[in-house]
């Protein structure tokens, strides 16, 4: 029976509960997630709108009861000329749901005629639901549930995964992904002899480098940097403690819920003081004539930080009005803002007192240790001063003798030479340098930038258009009313800021966003693209998940495994899909160019940290120890004697310079000249929450790879380290050190040819130079500068 249209059905058929259910649980989510960006409230391509009852009616795309006569069904079946959605066919189950809905009369319940985008219907706010992995045709391919989720999607599209990666590529991939370093020649040999990935993964997860790699990933979604101020480089010499806290947390596999609780409200316990660096280190000016507005602006950025980082929501929008797209009201915003307004971030009193510092507790042992350090330092100062005095006296004595001698006498010339020697001795004694820095190196009582509770917590008042001077109603401190966790929202006690309650609420197993957002971040780092590509935006303006069931499976697994990051990573990297080859071939490369369905491994540029660390590792210069202060000494003791600004020409201290990149000083604005490559290769802007690093390819980078002293020096060093070896062995060592695989005959042939040609060229230019070494150095540089090194595949 063909009915007249769509609206008549609404009027005639009483809404059957089951049909309404299908609409609410299946149909509307599909329309919202897959159709609304082009056929929604703001954009209506082809004049069609599918997010309201009226719109659907007017579109004429659905004929109630007539599945084959409904153009919407034709389009989603990809049966005719119009194929919708254009980005990719719906899953069979989704198409079936739409068909059933049309067949049953296309019921659109009256109450939801105009569903506001981003209310309870939004997928990310529904409870996490763990479903069994689907049955797949190629059951033998799948190693575990993750594989079945992924394969099912591919089979739905009629494509198949490519083959597995070769063992060299796989070991390089997993070592880079888990530690940010390259596998050593021994590790490569061991893996080839015993290709047990489990062993490798367990070794990597237990290595200290794992914490450095994944700690840095977390720092990307914080505002961590070691300077502050808007436009000013005011050093924050204790900021490293937060960085070290994060790295330690990953090494120890601190459960994610606990990790979050400590960062938001951990200052209750002294050992976690540094954890709240998460909240207090930020891109705010802590000098302003308008203190009220400043406090408010800081709280605003803290609300936004927690929103984006933990929940994938952009809460900042709600400062001035109810969020247009996500379920966050103006009131919700101020409920959370009150929590941070009741939290101390900057020092009290003096307007430019800086970030709030808290001293680590005094214990007898620590006091003793500190006193000893101070005494040793004082003794050292005295020694340096004394020896300096002796040097000075010696020099004065010589000068005095010279005074009355004729200008060109031999005796005077001899004395002049002696004086020059003495001056040199002073310079090189090292003590002079120490003297210059003694002040900066003065031992300090350990302290951390940390949040604290305000003495009198207060609720925030709605500020008209975000202006802290135009205040309206008070809003009780609390959490987002539109995000349900299955439990009653927490009550904030009158004598607390509410941070503890906020942290407790965020880490409830029933919170729909926290686990989803976190597992998606992990997935992003391992696959180069999140299941939700917009890792920091799970709102309606973010991207929908490519594998929603898998996302929920992983979120559920995280909570089941007591929020263990390592266990989750382990399960993911041991899947078959993680170990696929990166080669694009077959039908899949035409059907799914963007590799959304993960039929191959994504080839990705190394992040700048991994690139720099791998270069230093290959050249043998990398210093694996790390931790502790990273700013130049001249930026230490900033609150007493050091200059208030970090000078533009500051140098990184020698003992820090060759450590892993995560331990280098991190500035706001641009990075220090010694680590200029961070500016060139897309390092993360510390002022932003950056879940997805950009990976640009621009000639500036190629100029760096060809011409930077850094790469040239490390290449030369690597060439020096292999001097004296036969050509084949030398190439073998170099290729293994950079590309983690044995050299091929072609590699060796190419190297020999290049070195022989280039050596001749160099010799012609400068007969005195070590042309042999120069040519090999350039060969090494070419290894670093080409795609096999720059990319992880």
């Amino acid at each position, binding site marked *: 029976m063909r009915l007249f249209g769509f609206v008549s059905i609404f009027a005639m058929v009483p809404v059957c509960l089951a049909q309404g259910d299908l609409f609410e649980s299946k149909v509307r989510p599909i329309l919202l997630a897959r159709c609304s960006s082009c056929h929604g409230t703001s954009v209506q391509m082809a004049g069609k709108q599918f997010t309201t009852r009226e719109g659907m009616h007017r579109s004429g795309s659905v004929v109630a009861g007539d599945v084959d006569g409904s153009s919407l069904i034709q389009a989603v079946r990809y049966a005719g000329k119009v194929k919708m959605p254009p*980005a990719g066919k719906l899953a069979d189950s989704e198409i079936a749901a739409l068909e059933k809905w049309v067949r049953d009369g296309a019921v659109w319940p009256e109450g939801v005629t105009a569903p506001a985008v981003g209310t309870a219907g939004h997928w990310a706010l529904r409870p996490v639901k763990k479903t069994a992995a689907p049955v797949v045709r190629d059951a033998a391919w799948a190693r575990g549930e993750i594989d079945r989720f992924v394969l099912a999607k591919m089979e739905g599209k009629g494509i198949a995964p490519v083959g597995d990666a070769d063992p060299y590529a796989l070991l390089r991939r997993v070592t880079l992904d888990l530690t940010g370093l390259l596998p050593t020649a021994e590790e490569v040999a061991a893996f080839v002899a015993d290709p047990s990935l489990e062993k490798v993964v367990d070794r990597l997860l237990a290595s200290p480098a794992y914490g450095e790699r994944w700690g840095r990933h977390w720092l990307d979604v914080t505002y961590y940097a070691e300077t502050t101020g808007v436009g000013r480089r005011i050093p924050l010499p204790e900021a490293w403690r937060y960085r070290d806290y994060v790295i330690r947390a990953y090494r120890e596999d601190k459960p994610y819920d606990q990790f979050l609780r400590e960062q938001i409200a951990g200052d209750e316990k002294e050992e976690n003081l540094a954890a709240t660096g998460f909240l207090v280190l930020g891109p705010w000016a802590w000098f302003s004539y308008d203190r009220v507005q400043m406090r408010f602006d800081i709280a605003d950025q803290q609300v936004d930080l927690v929103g984006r980082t933990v929940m994938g929501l952009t809460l900042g929008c709600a400062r001035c009005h109810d969020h247009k797209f996500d379920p966050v009201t103006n009131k919700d915003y101020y409920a959370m803002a009150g929590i941070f307004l009741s939290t101390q971030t900057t020092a009290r009193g003096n307007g430019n007192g800086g970030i709030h510092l808290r001293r680590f507790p005094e214990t007898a042992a620590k006091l003793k240790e500190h006193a000893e350090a101070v005494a040793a330092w004082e003794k050292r100062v005295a020694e340096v001063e004394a020896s300096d005095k002796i040097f000075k006296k010696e020099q004065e004595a010589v000068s005095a003798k010279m005074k009355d001698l004729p200008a060109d006498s031999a005796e005077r010339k001899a004395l002049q030479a002696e004086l020059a020697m003495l001056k040199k001795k002073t310079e090189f004694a090292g003590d002079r340098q120490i003297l210059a820095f003694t002040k900066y190196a003065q031992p300090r009582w350990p302290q951390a930038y940390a949040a604290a509770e305000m003495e009198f917590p207060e609720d925030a008042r709605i500020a008209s258009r975000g202006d802290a001077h135009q205040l309206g109603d008070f809003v009780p401190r609390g959490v987002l009313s539109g995000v349900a966790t299955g439990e009653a929202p927490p009550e904030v006690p009158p004598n607390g800021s509410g941070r503890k309650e906020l942290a407790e609420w965020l880490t409830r197993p029933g919170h729909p966003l926290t686990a989803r957002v976190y597992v998606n971040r992990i997935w992003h780092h391992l696959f180069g693209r999140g299941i939700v590509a917009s890792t920091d935006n799970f709102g309606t303006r973010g991207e929908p998940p490519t594998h929603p069931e898998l996302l929920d499976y992983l979120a559920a697994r995280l909570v089941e495994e007591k929020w263990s990051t390592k266990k989750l990573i382990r399960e993911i990297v041991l899947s078959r899909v993680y170990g696929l080859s990166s080669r694009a071939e077959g039908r899949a490369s035409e059907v799914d160019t963007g590799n959304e369905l993960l039929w191959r491994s994504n080839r990705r540029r190394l992040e700048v940290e991994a690139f720099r660390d791998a270069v230093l590792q290959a050249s043998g210069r990398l210093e694996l120890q790390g931790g502790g202060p990273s700013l130049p000494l001249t930026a230490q003791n900033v609150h007493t004697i050091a200059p208030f600004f970090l000078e533009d020409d500051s140098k990184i201290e020698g003992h820090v310079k060759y450590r892993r990149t995560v331990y280098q000083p991190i500035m706001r604005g641009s990075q220090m000249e010694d680590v200029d490559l961070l500016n060139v290769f897309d390092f993360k802007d510390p002022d932003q929450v950056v879940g997805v690093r*950009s990976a640009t*390819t621009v000639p500036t980078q190629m*100029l760096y790879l*060809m011409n930077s002293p850094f790469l040239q020096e490390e290449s030369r060093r690597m060439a020096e380290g292999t001097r004296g070896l036969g050509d084949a062995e030398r190439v073998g060592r170099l290729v293994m050190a950079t590309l983690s695989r044995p050299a091929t005959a072609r590699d060796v042939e190419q190297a020999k040819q290049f070195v022989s040609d280039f050596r001749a060229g160099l010799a012609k230019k400068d007969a005195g130079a070590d042309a042999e070494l120069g040519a090999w150095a350039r060969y090494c540089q070419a290894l670093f500068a*080409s795609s096999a090194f720059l990319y992880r595949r």
Partner: protein
Amino acid sequence: MTFSGNQDRRGFLRSLGGGFGSLALAAMAAEGAVDPLAPKTPHFPAKAKRVILCWMQGGMSQMDLFDCKERLKQEGGKKIPFTVNSTKIRSEETALLLPPVAEFSRVGQCGLTMSNLMPHLTKKVDELCWLRGMVTDSPAHPGAIRLFQTGSSQFVRPSMGSWITYGLGTENRNLPAYMVISPMLYGDDGSPLHYSSGFLPAIYQGMRLGDARTPVKNSKIGYLGDPTLPADLQRQHLDLIQARNRMDQEAAGADAGVDGLIQSYELAYRMQVQAPEVFDVMGESEATRQLYGIGEEATDNYGRKCLMARRLAEKGVRFIQVTDNGWDHHSKIGTGLRKSAMGIDKPLAGLLTDLKARGLLEDTLVVVTGEFGRTPFDQSLGGKREDAGRDHNPNCWTMFMAGAGVKQGLIHGETDEYGWKTVNGQVHVHDLHATILHLLGLDHERLTYRYSGRDFRLTDVYGKVVREVLG
């Protein structure tokens, strides 16, 4: 070790894979070119060969500069007589109409009434093509900037410069095809995405010189050359790098990212030779530097940028963006706007004069605009009425173009009596994009790139060429 041209070509072709769109492939086949930046024939003949976008980030105040409103002058200080749609535009309860902060007079023959804030530009009005009915979608910077720069306020898309470079290639293989001078990189308003190539091949990405925080005279493209190595050995070294890149493509399969890398290397190598000289504006005559206001405190920075733009245009660079920021006058607009206007007035007028004198205006399109306009009513962020400024207004603003293919002395579009809304001759950003492409000989509906199963365009499903402005 070197490769012969044939091997080179095969390597490139092999590496192309499915990564390039139909237009590029068609052009390559037609011209036997293997290189995506080779000059391509446009869809139809056109005068404009390149674009200089003078980007006034923050939003210029139309009713204080170009769009004189008598009623606003008369009713300044009175209540807002029209309804402000609160979901789109913010307004304070206390907001009142703010009269223009500068004096206006009728200038030139075209009938434009312009304020006295830009005396040098005033002399050029008859050579410019004025659009007074510009509209955009978003009242906030991030969305409005993204829409202007990429055609989408919501999604990551290729930038306009990338589309144009993709469509036309470049005339000078020794310089970047697409240069962005001093863009904002940080905060909600700045992002490398504004000049990114999105899903287009990476080679079409804009090359940045400096950033908004750094005076352009202190900005340089780093590591431009290696003084220790003679040119022939540098080439030999690069040949090894490229040979290894191709070996990797063979071993691991084609990859668009590696394609971009290979092409970027060639470009970088050629840039080493030409770029240092092009960016050195001090090589110009004293008279030219003065024309642009170089050496004067207020205009030195923008003057240098404009002169660089002319030098790049002269060398055949396809798309040049010359950024000025700081137009977001929410408060103290009286003093702030004066300063901003002064900073660009002489440099812009100098650029137009210079381009014309060298015949470059014949085939160069100059576009001057920000992302939206400003409100006729005031905003007192500091609380004091005398410090008032104006808020963002996506409903209308004034921009202008000059040069190849556009009518001179035309005033297109009209706003209401207060400068609040466009009433006539509305031009949406999508329409402007369509028009700019048209002026370059590109049909905005045919300049497409297939990505993830769909043909994308700069103008998405929108855009209508503004025929009225075509010369």
